[in-house]
């Protein structure tokens, strides 16, 4: 029987970039459904605006760079960046906010560094951070999750027409906004955690970590598990991040005194934790390369997220943590090369070259 002679790499995979990106897009669906259920069509509009902007920018830049436009557009990577940014932005963000962030992400964070596969920083997170430090007011205007009981009638997600008006006409959305659980928790002054939970509607009406937001996180966790099951990425980075965050939360949660920093469950199911762990930290381009490296990368992101959440100025910290560790990824790679076949040890690159 004749066998084809084979040389490395020995694992052949019919998977294309396109397939991977499509899987990521599919996996965001549960989170998208929950966000839409809680906040109305705002997130859908975000994604729509971001996608159009991303495709236009990508095509324009590819044309400028004299690259095949159709080929790169069909790998859906620009679309994934747009969808991730759209999910991260507050629902009903004004349209120019989304356009600015997406254009910045695609043009500056992705293409100025060499395009697909060459960007040292996560484009979606760059877009997010630029918006966050430039337009703090608009970026912190989160809606009250539908069904939340405050002083008045239960909050309802704004209907279709209202949403359109807010996004495109710039009508005020003050009537709809409310502090996110992370925000509220940050401003707890002097109450025991149990007391604080009872007094704050966001927590009193939730099950584990704040009304509405816990479901957002669980939905993204489901999407993440789907991606893990399809072997789109390995468990190292997301588990590392959740572990880093949990350990930090464990050490700083003294049973709920007034100076404690939130339980493990609170941190795991708040803000962008699950979204980050499965959709941002797992980006193969900007993270460390080896399994060991990715685990360290994830752990450090979890730790930094906790540090900024607890002692920083911003309520959530995922974007900053990811960008900081993007900086560190080459450094991690340098010290965690995988063991090569035939060599017993995998030290740093320096040590190994001495052995050779």
């Amino acid at each position, binding site marked *: 029987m004749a066998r084809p002679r084979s040389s490395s790499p020995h694992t052949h995979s019919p998977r294309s970039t396109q397939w991977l990106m499509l899987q990521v897009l599919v996996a965001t669906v549960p989170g998208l459904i929950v966000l839409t259920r809680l906040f109305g069509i705002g997130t859908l509009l975000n994604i729509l605006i971001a996608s159009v902007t991303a495709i236009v920018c990508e095509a324009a830049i590819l044309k400028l760079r004299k690259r095949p436009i159709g080929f790169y557009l069909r790998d859906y990577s620009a679309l994934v960046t747009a969808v991730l940014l759209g999910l991260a932005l507050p629902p009903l963000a004004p349209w120019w906010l989304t356009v600015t962030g997406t254009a910045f992400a695609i043009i500056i964070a992705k293409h100025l560094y060499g395009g697909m596969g060459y960007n040292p920083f996560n484009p979606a997170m760059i877009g997010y951070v630029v918006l966050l*430090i430039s337009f703090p007011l608009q970026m912190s205007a989160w809606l009250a999750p539908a069904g939340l009981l405050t002083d008045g009638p239960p909050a309802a997600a704004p209907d279709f027409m209202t949403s359109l008006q807010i996004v495109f006409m710039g009508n005020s959305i003050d009537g709809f906004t409310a502090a996110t659980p992370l925000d509220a928790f940050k401003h707890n002054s002097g109450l025991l955690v149990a007391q604080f939970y009872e007094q704050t509607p966001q927590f009193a009406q939730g099950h584990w970590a704040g009304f509405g937001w816990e479901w957002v996180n669980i939905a993204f966790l489901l999407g993440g598990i789907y991606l893990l099951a399809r072997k789109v990425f390995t468990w190292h980075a997301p588990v590392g991040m959740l572990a880093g965050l949990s350990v930090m939360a464990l050490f700083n949660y003294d049973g709920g005194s007034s100076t404690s920093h939130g339980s493990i469950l609170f941190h795991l199911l708040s803000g962008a934790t699950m979204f980050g762990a499965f959709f941002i930290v797992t980006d193969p381009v900007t993270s460390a390369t080896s399994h060991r490296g990715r685990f360290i990368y994830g752990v450090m992101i979890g730790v930094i997220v906790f540090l900024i959440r607890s002692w920083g100025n911003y309520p959530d910290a995922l974007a900053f943590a990811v960008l900081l560790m993007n900086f560190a990824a080459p450094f991690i790679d340098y010290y965690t090369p995988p063991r090569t076949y035939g060599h017993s040890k995998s030290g740093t690159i320096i040590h190994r070259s001495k052995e050779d």
Partner: protein
Amino acid sequence: MSDVAYGEISRNGLWNNNPALVQLLGLCPLLAVSGSVVNALGLGLATLAVLVGSNIAVSLIRHQVGDAIRTPAFVMIIATFTTCTEMLMKAYTYELYQILGIFIPLIVTNCAILGRAEAFASKQPLLPAAFDGLMMGLGFGAVLLVLGAIREIIGSGTLFANMDLLFGPVASNWGFELFGDGYGFLVMILPPGAFLVTGLLIALKNIIDSRQQARLAKIKTAPLKGSKRVRTTGAIQ
């Protein structure tokens, strides 16, 4: 003195060897205070004054100061001129002086100035040295000004705002708002914006240079008229 290439000196200072875009010297003040045109212009003029003064002084003492102690001597000279400039700004543009703050005394540490003293003024007679200081200072100031204008327009939506800080009450209505009230793109005012715009300016300069070179190369390789005999020993020069 007639063989001094003043054209060359000005081309180097303004473009080919621009302190900000090519040598990448003095980036600290360049990035830190280029948030608006008035700040940029203030610091650009101060740097220009120090650069011309120090180049003249260094050129004058170049035969008296030995190699071993030249760096401390240069730094002393630069520090003297910087202090003078600082006092002048304190006297005439006090508010701008307060806004620029630490970055005026920090002109002493601007490597572009020490670099010019070392590389040019200490080896040249008075006039070329002074001219080089002027051109390098103008080159630095021009980049600072462009950077300040771009960051002010994109960052705060104004142009030439608060120019009265530098030119007195006559300039109080020079500024104009481009995008209306409430506009602000904070990242451009913050340090990341400075890095971004500087990077883009350097890229722009490189693009212009490479276009220029391509054009020159085209002219050079254009087929020569005349003999069409085949040459086998290298290209026709």
